[in-house]
């Protein structure tokens, strides 16, 4: 019992020290941060993170955060950079170099080349007097006053501080770009099923020329061609005002063939189902899936209050992999 208490005390101390490291940044952050944000917003290139060891790992995480929040970013390993990977850097790019000491020789060796390529360099370092800080266009002080790990065996508070500063940068950029939930989902199509099910239908339904449509007095051949073109296994039947009249599915055509052998020459209205299940565009995907499962259908017309067709959804598109994507509007 006593031993556990000691361990917890130590753990609390570590958390306290790391929290303090971040709180120190709160006090220290200044106009240079705004300059970094403006520099990135005005750039036509990408934000390239670089660093080695644990700073490199922090750089990779910041890269991922920037990418998922709308700032194109990539990670450049300093050791690989001197063996050819510098070719990825262009004059439009902004390089954020992370080193707590600011003396990391692998970074020092690529700095002249980065600047020679015309890229802007921002230093994330704990030492304003370090070569990295002095040689960079902008310097962000991510220094901390105390490491949590004894004898400097591993950087702890300093890497936490650099990581937090990267998050601060990403979040400020989100706000400045007016990046919203829709944009976030656009960059996260592989989100969990739960996330998918919570999305509104109007955000995922197929629209405009992706909707298979026929008029009820058209020949059934037209419906078959439309079903084949749009590849959803069905075509919606509408009147001139796009008001839903019915649906023709692969199953309807198959059953007509069994019954009549020759269906050519029939009109759509002679084959279609006249009371299709449908859903409002404001409902969520979860409700659509439940409705489809309950009625054993794979396609649902999406309509407004006067049954005018707004779109169409397919079960596989909602639950499956790559077919599921947010629409453009």
């Amino acid at each position: 019992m006593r031993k556990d208490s000691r361990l917890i005390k130590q753990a609390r101390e570590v958390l306290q020290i790391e929290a303090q490291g971040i709180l120190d940044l709160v006090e220290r952050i200044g106009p240079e941060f705004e300059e970094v944000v403006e520099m990135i917003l005005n750039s036509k290139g990408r934000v390239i993170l670089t660093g080695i060891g644990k700073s490199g790992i922090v750089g990779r995480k910041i890269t991922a955060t920037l990418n998922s929040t709308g700032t194109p970013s990539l990670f450049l390993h300093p050791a690989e950079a001197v063996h050819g990977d510098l070719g990825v850097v262009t004059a439009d790019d902004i390089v954020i170099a992370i080193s707590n000491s600011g003396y990391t020789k692998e970074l020092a060796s690529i700095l002249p080349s980065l600047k020679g390529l015309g890229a802007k360099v921002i230093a994330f370092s704990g030492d304003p007097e370090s070569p990295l800080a002095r040689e960079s266009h902008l310097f962000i002080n991510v220094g901390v006053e105390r490491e949590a790990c004894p004898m400097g065996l591993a950087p702890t508070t300093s890497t936490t501080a650099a990581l937090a500063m990267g998050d601060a940068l990403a979040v400020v950029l989100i706000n400045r770009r007016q990046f919203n939930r829709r944009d976030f989902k656009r960059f996260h199509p592989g989100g969990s099923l739960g996330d998918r099910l919570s999305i509104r239908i109007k955000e995922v339904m197929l629209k405009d020329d992706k909707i298979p449509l026929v008029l009820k007095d058209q020949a059934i051949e037209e419906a078959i061609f439309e079903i084949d073109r749009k590849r959803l296994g069905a075509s919606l039947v509408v009147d001139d005002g796009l008001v839903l009249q019915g649906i023709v599915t692969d199953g309807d055509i198959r059953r007509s063939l069994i019954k009549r052998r020759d269906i050519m020459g029939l009109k759509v209205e002679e084959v279609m189902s006249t009371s299709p299940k449908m859903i409002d565009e404001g409902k969520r995907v979860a409700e659509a899936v439940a409705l489809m499962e309950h009625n054993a259908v794979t396609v649902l017309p999406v309509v407004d209050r006067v049954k005018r067709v707004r779109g169409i959804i397919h079960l596989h598109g909602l639950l499956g992999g790559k077919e599921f994507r947010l629409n453009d509007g």
Partner: protein
Amino acid sequence: MMAEGLPKGLIVDLITPLNDKGGIDSQGLDTLLKKILPYADAILLAGPQMGEGRGLGLKLKIDLLEKAATFIQGKVPIFFWISEDSVKGTRDVIAHLEALLESSSYNGAVFWLDSPLFYHSNRGLYNHYQDLTLNTGYPFVLYNDPGLIRLLDRPLKRGNIRTNILKDLGKIDKIKALIFRGSLTRANNYQRALNTRADLRVYDGDEVGFLEHPSLSGVLSIGANIAPGIWSKVTRASLGMLKEDRERPDYLNQIWEMGKLLRDLIQIYSRNPVWIIKKALFDLKIIGSPACTNVTEGFQEKDSVLADFISRHNIV
């Protein structure tokens, strides 16, 4: 000379070598400093703990500074503990020491290390320092050591500088650093209070605390009197100042082992650091006498254990 900034690293809380007549052991001081200076980033003289500053008296303090300054020759900054039991006494010590430095034209960096609560209360501390710094020629380092204040045996007296008062003190340019002993929570609060001063250093005054969670300014070390090389290495590793060494395959293991050795040393001398370390330095023929201003009775006969440990581990 007024130093603009203070270094990061190892501050050695130097023992005051005394001869059997109670004077400064010049030869011992010279030998000890020759052993320590290559590894130290600053030297504390007449400190309240290792330097026996509370028992030295003005004459010995002046003698100590004069001799130490001659040996140190400006190679590293000197911290000198000047606190007495009253404001007047403290001012007198500063005046005499400054007169000495002026007359000797010493051009190394000197800082007055002051434990304000030793002779003053938190109330009015800012005004006290405004006045003190205005009328003295050298910069100050504050020493927050609640253990020292407890020795005054005044139960109602506060042992720590209040955080909001420290925040005000941080605005005084001539205060250049703080040596801190106390809880981690207080350390964090102090750090926040001093955040506006990027040039102000906060050193750990507690060796064990530094070995656990190192302050990135440095440490005031007792053990560096006997193991300066190891303390320097561990301090520099903790401060991320050993860039080249980090590439050695067994670097982490070496630092770990050194840290363990220092903890073992602390275990040995922590009962009575002044006497035990002086005795070890005497046994190792670095100083001429283990004499102290105030030796705990009956302590003398037991303690060759540190010298034995140092010899056994071949500590330089």
